[in-house]
């Protein structure tokens, strides 16, 4: 029934059109008398189309991407700093970085988010997006630092010796010679960490940040559909991570080819 309807009015699929289709099956829906396709349409209508609800998901996706992007930048900067501290040869710095990484990696991220939200920012009026960026960035930094540290350690010792023998300072050698090579080695793992981070920001639903997961949850609270809103959110996550994973694969292939430069 639905497919014939769609064919007959394919030229203008406006929201009004969707509303008309809804009116056609509404009585059957109330009577609980729908076939599979009608049921599917009902779910999509209520959870996506009605009241422009799709905008809720897109806004949620926007916030998810925004938080992920800035948390990744923050995590990268802090992660580099931690990696340098661990390799600095200065005992107190190594200790501090080691403890930081141990604590972050050894406790649940949800707990960290709750502590940062209620503990640190509990009494301050501050945008939840910023709290999310800080919480996820702090968490990501611990993992990033380990990725970068192993990248640095993978660079041959002869590179440092060549740099130092040209009179470059330890810092110049690190910045101009070791770091660029370490970063290239670490790039795939760093991209992976970014993809992981996008999924993990869903934890921020717990502190009522309306990112993509919370957006789905909000729709569910309106429609009482058990699955559909979460599945819509899930599909959007999949699209984003799928595209990024595809790009990452391309990048890795290019890096491997470039190895013979």
């Amino acid at each position, binding site marked *: 029934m639905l497919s014939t309807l769609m064919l007959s009015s394919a030229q203008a699929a406006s929201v009004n059109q969707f509303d008309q289709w809804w009116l056609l099956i509404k009585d059957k829906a109330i009577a609980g008398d729908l076939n599979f396709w009608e049921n599917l349409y009902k779910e999509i209508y209520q959870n996506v189309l009605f009241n422009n609800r799709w905008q809720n998901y897109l806004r949620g996706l926007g916030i998810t991407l925004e938080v992920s992007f800035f948390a990744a930048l923050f995590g990268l900067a802090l992660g580099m700093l931690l990696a340098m501290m661990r390799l600095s040869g200065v005992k107190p710095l190594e200790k501090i970085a080691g403890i930081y990484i141990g604590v972050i990696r050894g406790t649940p991220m949800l707990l960290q988010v709750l502590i940062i939200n209620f503990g640190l920012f509990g009494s301050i009026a501050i945008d939840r997006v910023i709290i999310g960026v800080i919480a996820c960035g702090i968490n990501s930094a611990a993992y990033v630092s380990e990725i970068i540290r192993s990248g640095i350690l993978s660079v*041959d010792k002869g590179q440092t*010796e*060549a740099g130092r*023998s*040209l*009179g*470059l300072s330890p810092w110049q050698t690190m910045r*101009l010679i070791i770091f660029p090579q370490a970063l290239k080695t670490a790039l795939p793992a760093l991209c992976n960490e970014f993809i992981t981070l996008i999924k993990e920001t869903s934890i921020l639903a717990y502190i009522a940040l309306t990112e993509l997961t919370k957006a789905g949850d909000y729709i569910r609270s309106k429609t009482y559909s058990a699955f559909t809103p979460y599945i819509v959110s899930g599909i959007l996550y999949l699209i984003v991570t799928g595209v990024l994973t595809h790009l990452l694969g391309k990048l890795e292939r290019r890096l491997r080819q470039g190895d013979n*430069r």
Partner: protein
Amino acid sequence: MITVNNLHKHFGELKVLNGIDQHISPGEKVVIIGPSGSGKSTFLRCLNLLEKPTGGQIFFEGTEITAPKADIDALRRRMGMVFQQFNLFPHLSVMDNITLAPITHKLLTKAQAQERAMELLNRVGLPEKANAFPKQLSGGQQQRIAIVRALAMNPDVMLFDEPTSALDPEMVGEVLEVMKALALDGMTMVVVTHEMGFAKEVGDRVLFMDAGVVLEEGTPSAIFENAQNPRTQDFLRKVL
């Protein structure tokens, strides 16, 4: 130019250098030979403090570089080093490999550094490789670039640690040629090598090292034709 007094280097329990006294004059070509593990590399690496001596003193151009407050980076700018494994920077083009240090130290502008690099590349016969990356080059070409990279800092001394040992035999010659030309130019050189032909031809003085000391030294002819110490004789019988 370089004076070494009673130099010792221990790695934990392992005593690698056990009291070396040497004086290297400007323009002198010193060749170091000796069995594997005798401390040749360690001695060379102490000269530019890639290894920190555990005892003794080293003076370079009048300053004690083993003093706690010595400016090691400044010293290294005047001492070039060439490694067995070339150690070119793989992420940089040949040109950038060569100009990195002079530009970073603000000794030359970028344009000046590139001009100087081209000059040096011409001298080693590789001007067309300026934009290549190290991995695109043969071992012999990489080592010639590594020599140019060190020369770009206009060093007063060049240290070579077995510069041809990692090369296929057919590429050894091209690197030795570059080193000979450098010697003719009057560069002060300290060379660890197994190339006895090079030692005879270029060396002013040959040091035979064994178990962390200089066991015997002299002109190439004194060492190669008339060695006094049985250990030296034994070593030379094996390698010649």
